[in-house]
Every structure is written in C-alpha cells, then in structure tokens.
C-alpha cells in the first residue's frame, strides 16, 4: 500500500464506518471505497493488538496463568512430589481453623498499623509542621535522604535493623547511655517485642515517603484557602483538620494503597529479621506460604493461603480507590 492509498482509505474510515443514509443509485466506486475502508480498519485494529501482544504475553504467562494455577492447586492435597489428591475446599477450611494460619492473619493486620496507619499519621503531622513555615530551601536534599529507605532492597533494610536491634546495637547502647539500660533487650528475639520491632522497621521505610507525598500535596492546595480560614480565626489545628486533611484525599489514596499492599504481602523483611520467630510470634502470610510450599510439603494449603491473600489485597486496593474517588 502506498502512502497515497493509505491517506485515502485510512482517514475517512471512521466517517464511513458510521451508518449514514445510502444514496440512491449504485455507486461502484463508493462501495469499493467502503469495503477498503472496512478492511483498513480491521487491519489497523489487528496492528493495534500486535502492539499490545509483547505486554500481554509475559503478563498472561507469568502472572495471570500462575495465579489461576495457584487457585487450581488450592483444591488439592499435594506435597509437591507424589500425585495430588482432590480435597475440594478443605484447604480453605484449614485457614480458618489452624491457629498458626490465624496468627499470620492477625500479624498481617497488626503490620497495617505499623506500615500504614503510623507512617501516615507521622507523615501528615510532619508535613503540616514543615509546610506551615517552610521555605523551599534544602527540600531537595531532604527528599533525597527521606527516599533512601525506599530505594534499598528490604533484605538490606532488614540487615540494617538487625544490627540496630542487636544486643550491642545502637538502640540498647542509647538506652544504656541515658540510664535505661534495664530496658535493653534482644528485641527481635523477644516474644513480646519482635512484632512491634519488625513493624517499626516498616514505619521507618515508609514514613519519609508519606511525608514527602503529603508535603507535595499541601503545596498543591491554594494558599488563599488558608488565608481565608485564618481571617475567620481558624488556628493551626482547625486549619489542619478542616482544610489540609480533606484536600489531601488523593495523597491518602496513594499512601494507603502503597503501604497496605506492602504490609499484607510483606515477606523479605520478616524473612531476614526474624524468619517468623521467635516461635510463631512474627509469622505473616508470606512466610507461611514460603514455609508450607517449599519446606513443609503442603502446597495445597499454601496455595489456598496465597489465593486468600491475593483476594484480600485486591479488595483492599479496590476499596481504597473507591473511597478516594467519592466526594469529601
């Protein structure tokens, strides 16, 4: 097809495709033109699909089909070696009854507190304090440093904090320095403290991100709104609750979906710091899926757990996006 051809056939295709009153009289050239236009449109739609293929193929083969396969495996009792046997929904029933699996669900919920709620509160307050009086100087450097925990692998974050929490690490050292040496503990080895200790690592990773996110949000808010509020006698606290928080809705949505996904699907950090221990005091779904499928010979139960986890994450993301779109 020459360029001239294409110009003739392709451009008016949309006009031709739309139904229009047929003129009386057989018009061979017109019909032929319509036919070329139709085949031209079909050809262009095929080409458009070809553009999508390189993305659809790996995504389907290495994400969607494996997920469906996980769902399939969740109906079987399988040790990964011998023949699997069909057990229906038994694996899902076990998730509800097994105390270890229930503990994992509970810990994932607790991690949302540390990965989402706490960082969002810290980030919000910090952003409000900084934005009220901040000049813009130095914010570039601040951003660079605050994003550092986002960049390095969580395995490295875990090693960093193992050392902070170690018996001779800086946390205990600081406690001893201020005369609170009696409180010093092997934090990650303690049944009481391991979960909050791991959770606070998550808080450390995302607090800076939340603060920068909210800070860029407050810069979007029109300063005149604040001035009007101040003229009406609103103090900083009132200003925060009545203007800043409601207008930061899109930023809340981004912060929540990032951090909730990170909390629910956490694996790397726990694997490195505690491995789920001591006992089962820090097991999360990710750790259990790993243990059951690749060490425990319970591929079916692990698959059921993986499906439940994926469903919970999808619902959470959906709810967060819905909430963020509704009018305040």
């Amino acid at each position: 097809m020459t360029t001239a051809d294409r110009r003739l056939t392709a451009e008016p295709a949309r006009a031709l495709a739309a139904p229009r009153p047929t003129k009386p009289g057989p018009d061979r050239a017109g019909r032929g033109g319509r036919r070329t236009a139709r085949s031209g449109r079909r050809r262009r739609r095929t080409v458009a699909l070809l553009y999508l293929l390189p993305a659809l193929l790996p995504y389907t083969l290495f994400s969607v089909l494996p997920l469906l396969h996980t769902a399939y495996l969740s109906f079987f009792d399988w040790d990964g070696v011998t023949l699997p046997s069909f057990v229906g929904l038994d694996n899902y029933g076990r998730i509800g009854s097994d105390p270890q699996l229930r503990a994992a669900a509970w810990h994932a919920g607790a991690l949302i507190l540390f990965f989402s709620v706490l960082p969002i509160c810290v980030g919000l307050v910090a952003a409000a304090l900084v934005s009220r009086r901040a000049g813009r100087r130095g914010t570039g450097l601040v951003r660079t440093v605050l994003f550092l925990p986002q960049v390095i692998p969580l395995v490295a974050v875990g090693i960093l904090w193992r050392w902070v929490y170690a018996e001779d690490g800086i946390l205990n050292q600081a406690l001893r320095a201020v005369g609170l040496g009696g409180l010093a503990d092997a934090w990650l080895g303690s049944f009481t403290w391991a979960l909050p200790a791991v959770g606070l690592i998550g808080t450390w990773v995302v607090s800076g991100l939340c603060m920068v996110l909210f800070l860029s949000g407050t810069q979007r808010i029109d300063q005149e709104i604040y001035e009007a509020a101040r003229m009406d006698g609103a103090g900083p606290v009132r200003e925060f609750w009545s203007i800043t928080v409601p207008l930061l809705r899109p930023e809340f949505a981004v912060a929540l979906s990032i951090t909730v996904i990170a909390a629910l699907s956490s694996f790397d950090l726990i694997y490195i710091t505690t491995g789920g221990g001591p006992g089962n005091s820090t097991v999360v779904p990710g750790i259990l899926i790993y243990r059951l499928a690749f060490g425990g010979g319970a591929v079916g139960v692990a698959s059921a757990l993986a499906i439940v986890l994926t469903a919970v994450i999808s619902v959470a993301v959906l709810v967060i996006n819905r909430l963020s779109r509704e009018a305040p």
Partner: protein
Amino acid sequence: MTTLTSTAAPARAVAGRLAAPIVLVLFIAAVLVPFASLLLAALQPAGAPLTGFALPDGLHFENFSRAWSAAGFGTLLRSSVLIAVCVVPAAVVCATLAGYALATLDVPGRGRLYAYLLLGLSIPTEGTIIPLYYDLRAVGLTNTVPGLALAEIGAFMPFGVFWMRAHFATMPRSLIEAARLDGASSWATLWRILLPSSRPAVTTLGVLYFVWSWNQFLLPLILIQDPSRRTAPAGLGFFTGQFGVDVPLLAAATLIVIAPVVLVYLFFQRHFISGVLSGALKG
C-alpha cells in the same frame, strides 16, 4: 501577667519557626543513623567485639575485599546486573508499545484489555510463586536467567502499561492526528513524533524497573536455587542465615549490594521520586 503574655507570644512564634527545621532534622537523623552504624561496623577489624556506634581503630577496608571475593559478592553482583540488563530494556519496550496502543490506537476491547492489565497491580508475588516454581522447573527454566527475567517482566507489566498509557494520553491529540494526516504509520508516529518528547516518562519507568529488578527477593530466592547464579539480595539473604554473626563482613556485603542501586537513585532521583509519588511500588 502582661510580661508573661508578651514573652509567650514571641516564644510561640519562635517555636513555630523552629518546628520545620527540627522535624526535618529528626527525620533525616532517623534515616541516616542506622546507615552510619552499619558503615562503622563494616570498617571494624574482623572478629573484634562490636557495639552499635563505635569508631573503628582505623579504616579496615579488608571487610569489603573479603565480601567481594571470598564471600562471592562480586559474582552475585554480576548476576544481578545480568538480570537487570535483560529485564529493564525489554520491559520498558513492551510497556511503551502497549501504553501507546491503549492511549492512541483503535484497539478492539480497549477498556477490557486495560482493566485486565490493571488487575495485575494487586497480584502479590506470593500469589504466583508456587506454580511459577513448579511450572518453570517442568520446562527447565528454573536456575536460568530467562526464567527469572520473564517472571519479572510479567510482574512489572501492569504498572509499566499504566504509566506509559497515562503519559501518551497527555500528549496533544492534534500532534498524532497531524502525523496520521501526513501519512505517517502508527509505528512512525510513535518513534519519530511521540518518543523523542517522551524521554522523562521512559527514563522514570526504566529507573523504577531497575530498582525493582535489583531489589526483587522472593522470585530469585525460589526460582534460582543454584548458589552461583543467585542475585545479590538473594545471596545476601542466604549469607545472613549462614554468617549472621560476622557483623563486619555482613555489613560490608550489605553496603556492596546496595551501592549500585543507591548510585542509580542518586543519579536519577527526580525520576524515581516522581514515579513513587504517583503510586509505584512493587517488590
């Protein structure tokens, strides 16, 4: 009474002015102090009794050379680079083509295909890792670069398509129409008209993909069982389990593993931050 209020008011003003710098310094210190502690540990002589914050009696860089050669982190770094070199360009090209098609071309079932791709944003690695291991093993792709690379590309596609589609949707419609009227094919429109002004969006995606690929842990942990082909973070994970007590060596190895990704970040930080702020997090 009057003196009290007259001193309280300026005091409050000073507190208000100091709040911002104090908060910022606290945040920065909270980020940097753990790093400083790790760096100091890496410089300690091997086998010395350690505490979290102690100046070493000299700079013992031998921990780094021990980690690089004896502990094999040089090799681990090389396989991580190899994976990233396979994953990043391929994934960026695939995402760009798909984003372009979804934003500007007449794709049949466009809405449904886009929704299908976006579903992937909420699939955690845990949801796919079990069959990935058994299926890739069945076709001989475990312990190979292509196996891991393809799994990563598949997992990275949803965000990339979302990102590039959003980018192409912001480009002026008239530009695309004019190109078509001039007889440019869809291919030429993409390469000659749209891509030259898309450098920032493409770079951001590339940087995010590099960081995700480098930091990926669960996929290489399961899909690469051969110790000589592990990626750096996976190797670090195993190393922690075996040599967790040799803190200076472990600290040096950790710094070696994070150095490349931190360098890329420092170089492209604007791109990385803008990507993350728009909701990019994976792995």
